[in-house]
């Protein structure tokens, strides 16, 4: 029994290690362009994962991800610009801490709010961040935007796509590892319990306020980290990059499978592939395509591709 368990833990770990190995294969087989796209997919998945924990597990409906993401991107970039000697992992960690504080700051007043009220409050905070970015011109360059320094350690810059891809991939893998651990643990269970019913959850001794704050913090940290990585990938920041992203995360969640650990990654892939597939035909009306896909998933396959894959798998198994 004990051995069996240890074995499972070890095979689990091996899978993650295999994931790391894959990172070294991609640059060999993919062009720079596709590495860029792949890095972008991972970044979007990280931010969407934050939203996923909030909506899919905790029933905390948030429109705040783009704002949090922009905050992270600007915070990291300004930090690296002003203190160029800071190694980039430190920049990322400091950004994560700052994002956590922001999540706490915004989550706290939102605790009393529920449903639409909460959604609108997060939307408001998010748009306030954009307004502030454009307002604090001396710091952020306002509407014109600002140059974002590449990741660097003590003057050594990792400014090419392959390097950035490695960074993004490893951080993405770490986050995925952490999130799937939380999902299986006490906290994840408490969040899902809150999603399914606040009163019974409270009656089981779960402190709703505390857990919701945790959700807010996790959501904003993931968005903030995603923001920094995005600034590395793009190299230039403008608030518009982020403010137009708002609805993309919902599409990612719905198409991938909301409330599942791998849903955001699948969804992010689908979302980034849509323009590749339909771009030629519908370049003028991508929104139309996004809309049709979003409604299609919500009304026909609310569990997203993740659920469809699960069903296929069980069908195949039964067949064999």
């Amino acid at each position, binding site marked *: 029994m004990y051995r069996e368990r240890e074995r499972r833990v070890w095979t689990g770990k091996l899978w993650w290690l295999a994931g790391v190995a894959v990172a070294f294969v991609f640059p060999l087989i993919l062009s720079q362009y596709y590495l860029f796209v792949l890095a972008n997919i991972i970044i979007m998945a990280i931010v969407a994962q934050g939203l996923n924990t909030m909506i899919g597990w905790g029933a905390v409906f948030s429109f705040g991800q783009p704002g949090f993401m922009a905050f992270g991107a600007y915070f990291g970039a300004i930090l690296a610009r002003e203190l160029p000697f800071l190694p980039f992992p430190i920049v990322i960690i400091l950004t994560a801490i700052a994002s956590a504080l922001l999540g706490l700051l915004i989550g706290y007043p939102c605790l009393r709010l529920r449903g639409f*009220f909460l959604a*609108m409050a997060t939307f408001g*905070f998010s748009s306030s961040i954009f307004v502030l970015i454009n*307002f604090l011109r001396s710091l952020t360059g306002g509407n014109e935007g600002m140059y974002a320094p590449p990741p660097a350690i003590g003057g050594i810059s990792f400014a090419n796509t392959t390097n950035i891809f490695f960074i993004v991939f490893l951080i993405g893998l770490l986050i995925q590892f952490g999130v799937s651990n939380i999902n299986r643990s006490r906290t994840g269970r408490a969040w899902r319990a809150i999603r399914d019913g606040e*009163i019974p959850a409270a009656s089981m001794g779960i402190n709703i306020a505390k857990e919701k704050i945790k959700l807010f913090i996790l959501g904003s940290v993931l968005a903030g980290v995603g923001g920094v990585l995005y600034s590395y990938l793009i190299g230039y920041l403008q608030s518009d990059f982020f403010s137009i992203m708002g609805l993309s995360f919902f599409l990612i969640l719905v198409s991938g499978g909301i409330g599942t650990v791998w849903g955001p990654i699948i969804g992010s892939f689908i979302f980034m592939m849509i323009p590749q597939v339909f771009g030629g035909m519908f370049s003028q*009306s991508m929104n*139309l395509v996004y809309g049709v896909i*979003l409604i299609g998933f*919500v009304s026909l396959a609310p569990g997203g591709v993740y659920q469809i894959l699960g069903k296929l798998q069980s069908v195949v198994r039964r067949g064999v």
Partner: protein
Amino acid sequence: MFVELFIDGLSVGSIYALVSVGLVLVFQSTRALNFSHGDFMMISTFVAYALVVQFGVPFLFAIPVVLGFSALLGVVVERFVIRRLMSGSMPAIIMATLGIGYMLQGTASTIWTDDIFAFPRLFPGRFVNIAGVRVTPQSIGVVVTTILVMATLHLFLTRTKLGTGFRALTQNRTAAALMGVPITRMYALAWAIGGVLAAIAGVLLAPTLFLSTGMSEITFTAIMCAIIGGFGKIYGAIIGGYLVGIFSSILPLYIPSDLQAIIPFVLLMVVLFIRPTGILGVKTIKKV
């Protein structure tokens, strides 16, 4: 200056009020917060633009066509998307309406591109001077039209059998069904009225704001207005709309104009801080 901005605020507030009342009517009946409401407004205004500017149809004839189009759009969306999701979760409905918004946006940008268009004024003319205050016929027209529309809506809801039935439905669906109120037709009616109100708002707003696919961003402000007034209350939405309109016009006198965009939100947070249910809202207790 202050008085002129105040009148400006009334005119902007009228638009917000129209849009948020439509949102609330739709929400009251089908419990769906329609995040595509602003897109209804945008696309109806584009239809109006096409009729009046591109095909030269006189305003008088174009307006009924546009209102009919918008009402029909509401009915179709209710029938084919919302009704299937009504028993589902809140995120599903939010995302479905977001999806409808995307679709309408995409349609509009396909047909008319994302450019900015000048929209003809319903109430043309330059400034008039009333007791030393300069106002445009447009803003007077907007305010007066809104008052007329609201009054009609009020009379419909309180004086007609259909309207009373609608109010009954919003207060208790089961009891309304037991009185013989045709529930599903009422849903369609609510979405149709919502569409009409959005179209009116669009035609009134477009001459000053210009017409573009970006117009639909008004949805979020309108939702905030509705929450400020006490979510789910029609008269609350009107109050919220005017409050936001007036504050966003007057406050830029005293604060940097860059910050104008967050005035509705700040107002929302202040109101919710003082009264968590909004101005006219009442507290509900969840039963277990």
